[in-house]
Every structure is written in structure tokens, then in C-alpha cells.
């Protein structure tokens, strides 16, 4: 369920490079462009009040399942699956992080047993297909292509 308000974060930086954030709530019924316009207007009004410089503006919509369902098993959140997708010959790979990956998708044969993720697992294949078909990209906006490899990382 989409939360009723979206959050706008205005990131400010002083001359030492330190940063701080102004958080504002705006109805989530507005579009990104509308919220962006409002946030930009608000930021310009704040400029006379602060000696810091605006360096970044974030807009966050939050959606959460309702009601929340309990975890399906005891897999720790720290066991992270890192899925690496190609994006093109000259563009950076994309990495998608999935926490608490299940034993059932891990490789069972040497030398990847328990560490590598089984790329032939049907659930993994479905996930990779959906990522490719739904326009998911790397942080630079390059579309994800083929799932190249995946394994367990500790990112916490």
C-alpha cells in the first residue's frame, strides 16, 4: 500500500563538505514532476535562511505490503545474494542485492557449493527474466541484460 505522503529530502553542504538534510512531506498523490517543482520552489525559499548549498534533492515514495507477513524461514538478513547483470559492452554491470537468500537457490556442487547461486534454478531464471523485461537498470540508467553470475556476499 502506498503511504499517503512522499518524502522530499533536500541535502545541504557547508564549506567543510559536511552535509545535512531537510525532510519535507508532500502528498504522494502528486506526480514526481509536481513534487519536484514544489521541492525546488521550497528549496529556493530556504536559500536566504541558510549558509549551506543545496547539493542534492531526493523524492521518496514508500509502499509497504499490508498486512505485513512474517519471514518465511530463518534465513538471516545478512546473507545477501549479489546478482550481476550485463548492461552492454561499454557500460558498467548492474548488481542487484537480495537479502536473506534461501538455501534452495544456492549451488550444491564444488567449488561453488554454499556460496554461488544456482543460475539454472527456475526461481533465479524467472527473477532474471523479469529484471531484463521490466527495464531495471544499473545506477547509471543502463538497462539490465543477461544475468552473468550471482553469489552470496556479506554486506552488513
Amino acid at each position: 500500500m502506498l503511504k499517503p505522503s512522499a518524502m522530499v529530502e533536500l541535502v545541504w553542504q557547508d564549506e567543510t563538505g559536511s552535509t545535512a538534510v531537510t525532510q519535507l512531506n508532500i502528498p504522494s498523490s502528486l506526480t514526481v514532476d509536481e513534487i519536484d517543482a514544489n521541492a525546488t520552489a521550497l528549496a529556493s525559499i530556504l536559500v536566504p535562511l541558510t549558509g549551506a548549498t543545496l547539493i542534492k534533492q531526493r523524492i521518496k515514495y514508500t509502499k509497504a505490503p499490508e498486512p505485513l507477513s512474517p519471514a518465511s524461514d530463518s534465513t538471516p538478513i545478512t546473507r545477501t545474494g549479489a546478482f550481476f547483470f550485463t548492461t552492454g559492452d561499454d557500460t558498467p554491470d548492474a548488481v542487484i542485492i537480495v537479502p536473506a537468500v534461501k538455501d534452495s537457490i544456492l549451488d550444491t556442487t564444488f567449488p561453488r557449493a554454499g556460496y554461488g547461486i544456482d543460475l539454472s534454478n527456475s526461481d533465479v531464471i524467472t527473477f532474471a527474466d523479469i529484471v531484463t523485461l521490466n527495464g531495471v537498470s544499473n545506477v547509471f540508467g543502463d538497462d539490465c541484460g543477461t544475468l552473468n553470475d550471482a553469489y552470496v556476499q556479506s554486506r552488513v
Partner: protein
Amino acid sequence: MALNTFPEDWREQPCFIVAIPRPLVPYVGGLLKIAEMRGFWASSDDYQRAYSAVVELERCLMSTCLSDLIEQNNALYRLVNTALLGQAYTVVSDDPLVVTPAIAPSVDLTILDQDSLIGRIDRLTQLLDNRLAGTDTPLYSDLPGIKQQLESIIAALGDDSDLATIISDLEAIALLLA
């Protein structure tokens, strides 16, 4: 935190192989997360170049196990030893891979199969020795050498100097040799 730069020619620079124990792979991969962040790098260009390199490195952590490389090296050794000297190998088990005989620290030039590369060269050498010089070899010993045959022909010709006589004698010798 210091802002870091990353060279434009990073793809042209040499790479180093580091053996990472399997249980450390998740942690080494996870620790690289810090280098995936924009704030770690001095500029957007540094960030994009470094991000490419870091994520490729992370991907590679599980892609080529050192034991795979060693086994491929061993397989190459066996290919060469079989092709050159004819050593036959047998796969005793696949997982873990056990192949006999084990790779020896050194080998001599003993030919184990005459159909190997060195074996075939040896066969040709024996053939030439036998056919040209008439030398008895392990593979060829039952025919007189060409040199020996020529000497026999010259001896059979005797002192004849007339061309018609020489041709006639050669025809007679050819009939005898046939």
C-alpha cells in the same frame, strides 16, 4: 573521507591474480560495497569508471576458481604428454577428479606409444636408417638398404662400359629384384 580518482586507462593496465579462500569471498565482495558509492570518488567520471571496475571484480570473485585453473593446467599437461610421448591416462573418478597415473615431477624421452608425435618421428627415423643405410632398427630390419642395393647394382654391372650392355644388365637386375 578522502576522495579518490580512478584512471581513464584502467582497462589497459595489468591485472593481478589473488587467491581468495572460498569462505572469505562473501566478505571480500561485501567490503567492496564502499567503492560502489559515489561519495568515495572525486568526480562523476571517476565514479563511473571505478564502479565498472569494482562490479566486474565482484562478479569475477566466484567465476574462476583457482582449482579450476590448476586442473585446466593439468589437463593441458596430460594433453601434451599424451600427444608427444603417448602416455595414456585414466579418469578414476569425476568428483573429486582423480586421474592416473599422477603427473610426474619430470619425464624422460621414453616413447610410450609409437602413434604419438615423437613415436611417429622415431618411426620415420628408423625407416630412413633402415632404407638408406640398411641399419637394423627395432621396427625395420628385413629389407636391404638403398645404399646396399646400389652397391649391389654397381657390382653387378662389373666393368661394362657399353650403354646397351649396362641397360641390359639393369633390366636383368630389376627382374631379379622384382
